[in-house]
């Protein structure tokens, strides 16, 4: 009985294997989370590019859990994807999984967040330092060079949080010394935490002129807290998610730095297709910056 089931399984397995070989090339995309419109847009951009190129794209969602992402990547290696696209939940924790893909001979492309080790063919991301500077320059003009600012930081240790903060603070220090950062707290890129952290800061700080959040989710959370407090504080976010753009159009948020996640997904898949079609991966990781732009509304009075 067991033996018969075994044979049956084996037979079907062989048939299915042949079927799989006949299918087009498969590319795997391991995302940190899909509980964030930004990564949904990234996935959509990737899917469209995959459809255009006639390849299959497998998308896995790590739900912001480092251990799940490692398991996801291991599964994609078992699935024998031709190229692995990774958007790390954590730059360091993803390294062993990437090394495993390296050993399996699968080229790796990182998207949005970088990995701190392993062999990476391409890193596709916004120039976050430049974006942070862009936000600082805007805040500086808005406040005419003087004022008090709150910075809501992203998940500690992620390169996005580090780079945006670095660009923002470097610009203020060099070009706009009249502005001081009176509070700097993490809200982990999360809207609910953005709300509660901002509520706490509003209790502690009597005078706040502007908030710079490392992403729009936190900015929108902070906006809720500010609305409830009835105070007039200008909010600058990052990512230009649909919600945030709406808030800028409604003069609720002052600005958001637009990343182009859809572009990111598209470029990542296109690079993967190049690799599948025989382009040699570069010897050293090649950084492919995705341009940023500032979204504002000139009709608003601040």
């Amino acid at each position, binding site marked *: 009985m067991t033996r018969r089931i075994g044979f049956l399984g084996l037979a079907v*397995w062989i048939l299915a294997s042949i079927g799989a070989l006949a299918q087009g090339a498969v590319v795997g995309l391991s995302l940190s989370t899909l509980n964030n419109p930004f990564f949904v847009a990234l996935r959509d951009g990737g899917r469209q590019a995959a459809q255009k190129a006639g390849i299959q794209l497998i*998308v*896995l969602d790590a739900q912001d859990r480092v251990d799940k992402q490692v398991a996801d990547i291991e*599964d994609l290696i078992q699935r024998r994807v031709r190229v692995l696209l990774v958007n790390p939940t954590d730059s360091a924790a993803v390294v062993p999984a990437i090394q495993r893909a390296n050993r399996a001979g699968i080229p790796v492309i990182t998207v949005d967040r970088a990995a701190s*080790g392993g062999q990476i063919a391409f890193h596709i991301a916004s120039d976050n330092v430049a974006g942070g500077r862009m936000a600082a320059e805007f805040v500086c003009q808005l406040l005419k060079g003087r004022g008090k600012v709150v910075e809501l930081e992203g998940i*500690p*240790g992620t390169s996005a949080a580090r780079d945006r903060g670095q660009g923002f603070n470097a610009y203020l220090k060099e070009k706009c010394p009249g502005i001081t950062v009176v509070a700097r707290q993490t809200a982990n890129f999360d809207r609910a935490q953005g709300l509660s952290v901002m509520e706490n800061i509003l209790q502690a700080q009597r005078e706040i002129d502007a908030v710079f959040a490392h992403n729009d989710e936190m900015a929108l959370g902070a906006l809720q807290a500010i609305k409830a407090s009835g105070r007039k504080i200008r909010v600058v976010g990052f990512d230009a998610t649909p919600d945030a753009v709406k808030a800028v159009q409604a003069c609720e948020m002052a600005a958001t730095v637009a990343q182009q996640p859809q572009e990111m997904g598209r470029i990542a898949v296109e690079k993967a297709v190049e690799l599948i079609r025989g382009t040699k991966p570069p010897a050293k990781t090649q950084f492919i910056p995705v341009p940023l732009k500032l979204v504002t509304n000139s009709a608003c009075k601040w």
Partner: protein
Amino acid sequence: MLWARFGPSLLSRYGLLWALGFLILALSLLSPYFLSTANLLNVLRQVSINAILALGMTVVILKGGIDLSVGSLLALAGALAAGFALSGFPPPLAMGLGVGIAVALGTLQGLLVAYAGLPPFIVTLAGLTAFRGLTLVYTDGRPITGLPDPFLFLGNGTLLGIPVPVMVMLSFLLLTHLLLQNTALGRYLYAIGGNEEAARLSGVPVARIKVFAYAYSGLAAGLAALVLTGRLNSAQPTAGTGFELDAIAAAVVGGTSLAGGRGTAWGTFLGALIIGVLNNGMNLLNVSSFYQLIAKGAVIVLALLVDRLVRRR
């Protein structure tokens, strides 16, 4: 000899074996990538952390308790072990210290439950919060990286072709099995879970056994911490978030009664495997991650139903 020792408890988990067998057969038919040695070892490696935690959890649930703190305790133990190793302790000592502190904190919770009479749910819920806080304080919210090789070996190495995390898991499974089936301590745990008052009256040292259960769960959290830290090549301040629920799910799918008094180490192991196989299979099949969550919930209920039906027959 081996059968005499392990056969009966395997047989009593017959329903679960059917559920797992059916799942494996279905996935083998659906995906050509599922049934390979590499992938099966891959699944075992992936379930190792949840299985270890779930085994510790089983011991606590058996005596009629619950341990919600394991995820946070795991993060703390991992961070401490990593931190000690980086501050110059030899890696084995650093790992031992990390595990030791986890056991000590588990014991502390056990003391609060057994001697202060506080409800386990509340004590370990406080642990969940406080240990996470301690981890964040200790790590300053940043991952600890640059760990020495022994950590990597624990998480990613292989021994005789078998991944080290799997070795750790199987050893802990055997230890837990022997503890529950072959020692007086094990019988006391079942007795307390079945009827605490009756156990007390017949001379079981109830309080001490309870403390032991939480210490054992702490040991599980410490071991799982070493494996996870190795797998991620870093100690993450947010590691282990939500793991307590996965561990409870594995134990319950494995036939452990939340009311206490019923459950086995093998059952819990099978429960962890069912959940792990399902995760792996759905990834290979490219099931949308939103539907994956629904399927997981459905299969947990289904596995329980199959178990109940077979048991009743």
